[in-house]
């Protein structure tokens, strides 16, 4: 019978019934607000009473040792994983726990995965075209055609991520770093309010890393995007971070500027210690 109920619950069958996403309300402060979130897999608590607040326009770095719950946190925010308890709010109007992935995405939360995933069979241009903020219902998608405006927007992003010369090549032939940029570019096409970036510089060369740092710091800012970066590479974090949050065993261990964090004895013990000493 629960099946029947869920059949009745799902009123999302018809596109036209879905209200257009209302803009995020940040008048009362933070753009993202997590309170006492807990999730466990088979008894193992991946996230344990996590509290986190991201302000509008902020660029936040989140660090932590392996298994600290960074990726799971991203999964929760984007609706891939449901927490056992806790609250997750986007602005002061949207309860993210009541929404699914596409709904959250269309609210303006973009995510870049740890492993770069671009559509390898499609060209760089087409990748960006699909990512673009547009009416993403079926019939409009079927009848959509490329307007000059759209082309200009794509060209602009292509220039930002430095892939203008490769626009008609399939994304599958791009190098690892280029795929990372393409993915960031796809996020930009969505015109998100909040960007979640998971390990953007893993496997990149020095130059690519610098270029990525520029890209990310350029994105964040009041009235533009808020950016949350999860990263392992301390050098990279130091080069971009203003605010840093340290996760450990599923909850926040410390929060503050990079300088303060790197002198916090708790942090040194669980995470930085090993790295700084090396």
């Amino acid at each position, binding site marked *: 019978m629960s099946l029947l109920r869920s059949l009745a619950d*799902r009123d*999302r*069958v018809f*596109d036209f019934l879905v209200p257009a996403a209302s803009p995020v309300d940040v008048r009362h402060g933070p753009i993202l607000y997590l309170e006492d979130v807990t999730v466990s897999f088979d008894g193992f608590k991946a996230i344990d009473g996590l509290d986190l607040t991201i302000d509008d326009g902020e660029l936040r770095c989140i660090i932590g040792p392996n298994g600290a719950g960074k990726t799971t946190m991203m999964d929760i925010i*984007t609706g*891939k994983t449901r927490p056992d308890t806790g609250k997750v709010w986007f602005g002061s109007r949207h309860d993210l726990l009541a929404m699914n*992935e*596409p709904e959250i*995405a*269309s609210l303006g939360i*973009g*995510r870049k*995965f740890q492993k770069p*995933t*671009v*559509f*390898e*069979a*499609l060209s760089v241009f*087409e990748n960006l*075209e*699909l*990512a673009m*903020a547009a009416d*993403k*219902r*079926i019939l409009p*998608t*079927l*009848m*959509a*055609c*490329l307007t000059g405006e759209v082309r200009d927007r794509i060209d602009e992003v292509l220039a930002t991520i430095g892939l203008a010369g490769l626009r*008609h090549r*399939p994304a599958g032939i791009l190098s690892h770093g280029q795929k990372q940029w393409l993915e960031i570019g*796809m996020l930009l096409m*969505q015109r998100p309010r909040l960007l979640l970036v998971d390990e953007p510089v893993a496997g990149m060369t020095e130059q690519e890393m610098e270029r990525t740092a520029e890209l990310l710091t350029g994105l964040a800012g009041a009235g533009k995007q808020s950016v949350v970066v999860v990263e392992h590479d301390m050098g990279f974090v130091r080069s971009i971070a203003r605010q840093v949050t340290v996760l450990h065993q599923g909850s926040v261990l410390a929060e503050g500027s990079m300088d303060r964090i790197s002198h916090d004895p708790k942090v040194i013990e669980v995470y930085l210690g090993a790295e700084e000493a090396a």
Partner: protein
Amino acid sequence: MQSRSWLLRPFSERSTQLFIGVLLAALALVTVLHLAVPAGHPLNVTAYTVNLFGKYLSYALLAVAVDLVWGYLGILSLGHGAFFALGGYAMGMYLMRQIGDRGTYGDPVLPDFMVFLNWESLPWYWQGFDMAWFAFAMVLLAPGALALVFGWLAFRSRVTGVYLSIITQAMTFALMLAFFRNEMGFGGNNGLTDFRDILGFSLRNDATRLGLFIATGVALALGYVICRAIVVSKLGRVCVATRDAEARTRFLGYRVERFQLFVFVISAMLAGVAGALYVPQVGIINPSEFEPIFSIEIVLWVALGGRATLYGAVIGAILVNYAKTVFTGVMPDAWLFALGALFVLVTVFLPRGVAGLLAYRFKRQRRSSDDTATPQEASA
């Protein structure tokens, strides 16, 4: 380059122009050779052959429908035989009602098998099938509705990959068992047969058969254009994106399950049309069309022709079925060996099919960039 109307877009593509041109030329050629060349002449195409070609063309349309979901959406449906058969049954019911009182038992309303089973009156779901428009609408709606319900249940639960293949197979198997039951009211084991005429034309007439052949050809052309229009649209690119990275597409804000459902339903309807055109040409529809093996065979046609090309599906369907006609005539025992070997060889050695071979040749001559999608090796 892009036309305003989405349905007309494919006509600006060279590949579609070529395909439609070849298809129409073939239709015209067969018609001329059938009508204008006297019987007995080596170039004469007999009514039997016209009928055979018509059957191949309806299979080709079915293959195009399967390619749309498998090639571009990554959904390996092992249930398209069921949609094909449902369309066929809808047409069969219409043809049964057209028999009127000319059946063996002479009942003006009830088909022979119902009289034989001592049924008092026509079941409710047989009502309306005496009207052509209603029956033809059901050709689209019956498979469409099944695909809608089934697809909606499957896609919203994110059943994909081999799981989806298995449950589509279970679906067609369950339907086969159901249609074998006499109580279902579809003629059980024997199915529907002994058709007389369609839209007033006698099915035993050579001219009607030629007409059906041409109609099938036109339906194939239309189906191809519709599929092509979907494929070259942004929706087609969303499909390819879903095929290669479903989660990523979701995060971009596309409701993947609805796109899957939309394309799945369109494909099921095309399969239904193919079935409806098939039935009057072979003169029978029975539950064997629901056999799982048939549905898997359709996939082989597509694989042999070349996935995600549409025209490859047409080539594959015609090649395999022609081979089958030849084989089963000459050495019937060997056909299953040949078919089995074909499955293995195509998947192992020819993952891009015949179309892949053709495309490889063309690409050497000119590096074209107008092909939107190239088939992926990985099919997860």
